């Protein structure tokens, strides 16, 4: 690898450097991640190689939907990329038959076939499968809902307060990374740059390979 020097390392011209460095904004938007998550949800519940289910139905579908919405609102990017710290954020047990049987029929997610013909022009993103969900099914929902409340809080102060409540109630949360990103974002918005940086540094130390690091960097430089 030492001989494989990238252009930026080889001394690209300032103009080329400017162009290459502009790719820092290429990270997908939260809306895109949310949309893709919703579209792929049926595949996640189907064994590879088998035909996907047509809907993210039942409890698993509800959890996926909540996760997707949370990911969107929290500005957290692909929180699903880290699996080295505790359980996955979206537990995906196979939907039991009884749950599927009573699943509401409305939010049908159709998985498009692989590339064969170009899709017709259409609006940007398919709507997420908003599953009319009844009551929360487990404490995992409480965890998500609290983080979602923090995400949608009206002020950074309120966000920070809710994040700290989340820390207290769910210290070993599988959503800890996302929670920390929210905290850094809130601190930055409050002008507490030093605190934000300290928290971001702790994040980096704890999750050195997280894909949230780029987002954190952008928050620190452009709150």
């Amino acid at each position, binding site marked *: 690898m030492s001989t494989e020097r990238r252009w930026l390392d080889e001394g690209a011209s300032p103009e080329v450097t400017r*162009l290459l460095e502009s790719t820092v904004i290429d*990270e997908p938007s939260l809306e895109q991640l949310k949309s893709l998550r919703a579209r792929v949800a049926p*595949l996640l519940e189907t*064994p590879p190689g088998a035909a*996907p289910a047509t809907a993210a139905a039942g409890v698993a579908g509800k959890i996926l939907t909540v996760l997707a919405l949370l990911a969107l609102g929290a500005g957290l990017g692909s929180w699903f990329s880290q699996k080295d710290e505790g359980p996955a954020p979206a537990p995906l047990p196979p939907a039991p038959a009884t749950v599927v049987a009573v699943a509401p029929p409305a939010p049908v997610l159709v998985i498009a076939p692989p590339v064969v013909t170009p899709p017709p022009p259409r609006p940007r993103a398919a709507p997420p499968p908003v599953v009319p969900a009844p009551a929360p099914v487990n404490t995992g929902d409480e965890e998500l809902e609290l983080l979602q409340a923090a995400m949608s809080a009206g002020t950074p102060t309120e966000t920070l307060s809710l994040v700290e409540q989340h820390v207290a109630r769910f210290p070993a949360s599988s959503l800890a990374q996302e929670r920390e990103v929210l905290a850094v974002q809130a601190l930055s918005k409050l002008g507490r740059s030093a605190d934000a940086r300290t928290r971001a540094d702790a994040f980096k130390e704890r999750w050195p390979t997280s894909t949230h690091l780029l987002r954190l960097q952008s928050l620190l430089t452009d709150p």
Partner: protein
Amino acid sequence: MEPQPAAPDPGFEEIYEAHASRVLRTLRRLGVREADLEDVAQEVFVVVHRKLPEFAGRSSLKTWLFGICVRVASGFRQRAHVQRESLGETAPERANSGELAVRSIALKQARVQLDALLDRLDEDKRTVFVLFELEQFSMAEVGETLGVPQQTAWSRLYAARKFIEAAVSRHAEAIE
């Protein structure tokens, strides 16, 4: 409904969770329009889901997955309407109204310029350039992803660099 068997290793969910963001990013860099990213990324994961049982670790997961990305993006780019519109597309407008949307105009302008240059590269050169320079693949990984000898990949990379450097120089001269 029959109980579903456990997913094999690597599981689809694991692959999705680890790579979804990068798949979207890479597709964009390979020339998929912003408005079509989710569509094309979905296609990628449908292919991954279908072919996963055949994967069997014959190559690295990374090169296998992004090989699919490259082929799906290529199919997208080859569609006539996309080719016509891609050069005309201007800003990489992000629908995201969150913090990522808060970027300097200069940064966006530079990104648009780079997109325009990448659009003018032929597909082979663009793919190597994107994987090596932007996605930080090793050249061995680039070769494995594309199924070409490393020397070929190097040649394409140098040609891409030369093209971009020349275009940037011409642009600089034109505005002086």
